[in-house]
């Protein structure tokens, strides 16, 4: 939590404030009240580093003593605000609907209202002085707390686990105590730190305006009020209280930030990236549109979710990349598309697109020959821009088209993917289109250029089966027409088996089997076989229990030297745990990485 210098500074400042509040009055209390008629209204001197006030009292001592009062008032205001706010925020979840809405509305109105005005109003009504100011600042803090409590409680109350508890008949009070409060306490306590800083500054402001602490009491704001009157003559007298207020504000704010960040993220330890193994590029695959060899993706700490994947795709071929979550299939697709997020490092022996090294391709060539389609069509289109404009920009940027030409082409492409009334759709915003229409629009975007490779990452997972069927048909149609290759990534073996020409099965970052799609049910690798067996389809025998694979896929950091599937594999022997089986030929257009399968067949 205290890794950054800012966090350390915040903690040190707050600790110093607390220490000052404890030891200030006993040590300097006397000096702060010592009246010296011979030294009134002095500037800085050796005896009085920050000068003296109108009664000759030492200002440095007064600043040091005022710490306790300033902090105590701030604490009182923050606690008043927090208590009132939490009660106000929790009320809607206990009250009947109508009064609950009233309270929510009132809180929303108050939140929008500037705190200082609220504080002034309250202070006028409660009377000028410390009491009024504390109540006022408390009143100013309360709406923020109420809103936060409301939002947090609402999000927890909507959680499935609260619904489950309610259905179990768990009493309301117990739900509040066991589920809601523990899950919102942390952010509320955090907010209290920030509110404390806010209260301190607010009270200083009130006192500075003369609306807060009144003489003979004094806090930092009051000292600043006195000092400010003399700023043209002896500016140093304002320095002490100003600095104290600023440091306290900074301390609480930095600490609050650090606490919030500590609560929000549990960051992974940072270690140096492991250099990807660079192997012999070998001979390029002739005629392949996509030719990948020994692709790796490594993250700091040596975590390698993709380990030496080799792939190829011929023109007009749809290659399915299938695997469960965590197999590295999507990251493989991102690496081929050049979209691996920092700090991931991509390594490869060979990465060629349409017979040319990807590293040597210009943005324009890549932008027009490589198309991508993602899972969530709701998220893939920019909500702020019209559909037509998003398509047209490829033509404008890469093909030097005029706006009118680009627009015409965009409408033409939208029609090409069977979007009804393409001209009208082009003028609409993405949120006005259905999910299936959006996915068509994304595919049309890829067709603005002359795609050689389309990378489709779970393009139908978010869609209904009937829409999925249409999108699959469209992909097939587009492939046949453009001669582009498709790399189709999916967790759904049935979809892959139906659409693709060839299937590549991944497990724990590696390819374990590669075979023609129509022979998926004859898969040789025990993992492929188990996947097929555990997939219920329209012909599964309902009288038998469904197969499932015991255990779970290892996380990238857990993958050892041997076959990653060995711990879950019914055929595994000692050899499997010791060494990793290579991907070798196993019949025509079929490759497998399994000691048991390949040894048995050669023996």
């Amino acid at each position, binding site marked *: 939590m205290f890794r950054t210098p*800012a966090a350390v500074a915040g903690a040190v400042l707050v600790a110093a404030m607390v220490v000052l509040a404890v030891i200030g009055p006993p040590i300097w209390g006397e000096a702060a009240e010592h009246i010296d008629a011979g030294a009134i209204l002095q500037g800085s001197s050796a005896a009085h580093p920050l000068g003296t006030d109108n009664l000759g009292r030492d200002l440095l001592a007064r600043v040091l003593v005022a710490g306790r009062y300033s902090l105590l008032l701030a604490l009182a205001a923050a606690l008043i605000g927090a208590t009132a706010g939490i009660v106000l925020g929790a009320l809607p979840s206990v009250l009947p609907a109508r009064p609950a809405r009233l309270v929510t509305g009132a809180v929303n109105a108050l939140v929008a209202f500037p705190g200082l005005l609220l504080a002034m109003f309250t202070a006028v009504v409660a009377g000028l002085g410390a009491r009024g100011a504390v109540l006022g600042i408390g009143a100013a803090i309360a709406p923020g707390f109420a809103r936060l409590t409301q939002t947090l409680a609402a999000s927890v109350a909507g959680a499935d686990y609260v619904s489950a508890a309610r259905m179990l008949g768990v009493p309301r009070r117990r739900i509040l105590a066991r589920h809601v409060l523990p899950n919102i306490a942390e952010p509320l306590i955090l907010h209290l730190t920030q509110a404390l800083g806010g209260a301190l500054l607010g009270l200083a402001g009130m006192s500075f305006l003369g609306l807060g602490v009144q003489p003979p009491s004094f806090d930092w704001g009051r000292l600043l009020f006195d000092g400010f009157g003399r700023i043209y003559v002896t500016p140093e007298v304002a320095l002490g209280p100003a600095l104290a207020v600023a440091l306290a504000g900074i301390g609480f704010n930095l600490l609050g930030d650090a606490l919030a960040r500590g609560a929000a993220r549990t960051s992974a330890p940072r270690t140096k990236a492991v250099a990807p193994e660079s192997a012999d590029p070998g001979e390029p695959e002739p005629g392949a549109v996509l030719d990948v060899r020994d692709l790796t993706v490594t993250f700091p700490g040596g975590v390698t979710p993709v380990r030496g994947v080799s792939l190829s795709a011929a023109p007009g071929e749809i290659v399915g990349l299938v695997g469960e979550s965590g197999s590295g299939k999507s990251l493989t697709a991102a690496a081929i598309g050049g979209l691996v997020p920092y700090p991931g490092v991509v390594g490869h022996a060979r990465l060629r697109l349409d017979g040319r090294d990807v590293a040597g391709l210009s943005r324009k060539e890549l932008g027009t020959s490589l198309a991508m389609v993602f899972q969530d069509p709701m998220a893939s289109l*920019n909500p702020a821009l019209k559909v037509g404009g998003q398509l047209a920009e490829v033509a404008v940027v890469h093909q030097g088209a005029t706006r009118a030409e680009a627009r015409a082409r965009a409408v033409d492409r939208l029609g090409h993917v069977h979007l009804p009334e393409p001209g009208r759709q082009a003028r609409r915003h993405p949120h006005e289109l259905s999910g299936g229409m959006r996915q068509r629009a994304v595919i049309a975007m890829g067709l603005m250029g002359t795609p050689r490779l389309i990378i489709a990452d779970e393009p139908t997972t978010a869609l209904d089966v009937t829409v999925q069927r249409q999108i699959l048909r469209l992909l097939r149609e587009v492939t046949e027409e453009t001669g582009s290759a498709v790399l189709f990534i999916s967790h759904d073996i049935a979809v892959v088996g139906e659409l693709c020409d060839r299937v590549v099965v991944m497990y724990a970052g590696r390819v374990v089997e590669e075979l023609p799609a129509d022979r998926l049910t004859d898969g040789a690798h025990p993992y492929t076989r188990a996947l097929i067996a555990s997939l219920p389809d329209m012909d599964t025998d309902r009288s038998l229990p469904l197969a499932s694979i015991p255990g779970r896929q290892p996380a990238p950091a857990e993958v050892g030297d041997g076959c990653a599937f060995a711990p879950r594999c019914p055929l595994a022997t000692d050899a499997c745990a010791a060494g990793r089986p290579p991907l070798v030929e196993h019949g025509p257009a079929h490759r497998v990485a399994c000691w048991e399968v390949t040894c048995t067949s050669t023996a």
Partner: protein
Amino acid sequence: MSRLVLRRLVRFAVSLAVLVVAAFAMIHLIPGDPVRASLGPAAPVELIEARRAALGLDQPLPAQFAAYVAGLFSGDLGTSFLTGEPVAEVIATRLPNTVGLALIATAVALLAAVPLGMWAAVRTENGRNRGTEAAFGSVTGTAVAVPEFLYAIALVTVFAIGLGVLPPAGKEGAVSYVLPVLALAIGPTATIARIARVETLRALGTDYVRLARAKRLPAARLHLRHVLPNTLTATLTLGGLMLSALIAGSVLVEYVFAWPGLGMKIVESITQKDYPVAQGVILVYGAIVLLVNLLVDLALGVLDPTSSIKES
């Protein structure tokens, strides 16, 4: 769309009504007799009674409220206890000074903060350049934590008293705006820059930006056309809310610079117990804040095509 406008207008009207009641109630909530409090303990009973009658304070409450509301509709906010000036006139001469200052400061803050936040986001995306991230975090974190009146005092001390290059107080010509605007804008700049950074990071992580990257768009086009518009909604919302916070924060800054605005007046009126003036100024401040929030909401409805959907 029009439903949205209607709902916002209703909310505005209700809030305004609540504000009017609160302002009216203020004078009656003050402990003791406000007239006696303002005239002092030595004031003769006849004078106090006469003043009370002149203010209508001897009438029953409902009648007083009716008179107050009727007065508001005819632009009558009451008269000052001290000077006898109509409160509406006092406010009318000072309001433009406050609003002008706040508007300029908001514009300065937005213009500085949005590019700063975007730059920081692009540089620190996915945890690269941790140094920049830490520096940005601590500088803005510090800048946010220092209240505007301390900036004001520091700026006066350095530029007006120390260097003598800028006027220390008052409103005389363009140069007199420099220090108050700076004092008001520094904090909001830091806040908005932080939000702009977070929003930019969020936009950079979306699929549509991934897709735009897959299209190999040049960086400038990617950031200005695909990222910026999607960060503006949140940033401008905050900018709008900042404007209302800024108008309130200007109370302190006006006080430091002796700026002839409403903020200066509200402090004076409260300390001098000139309650009609305090009441009027608080009412006007509140109404401005409500109006600003309404305008921000409506502007967002126009700017963001999806916000009307989110609403339902």
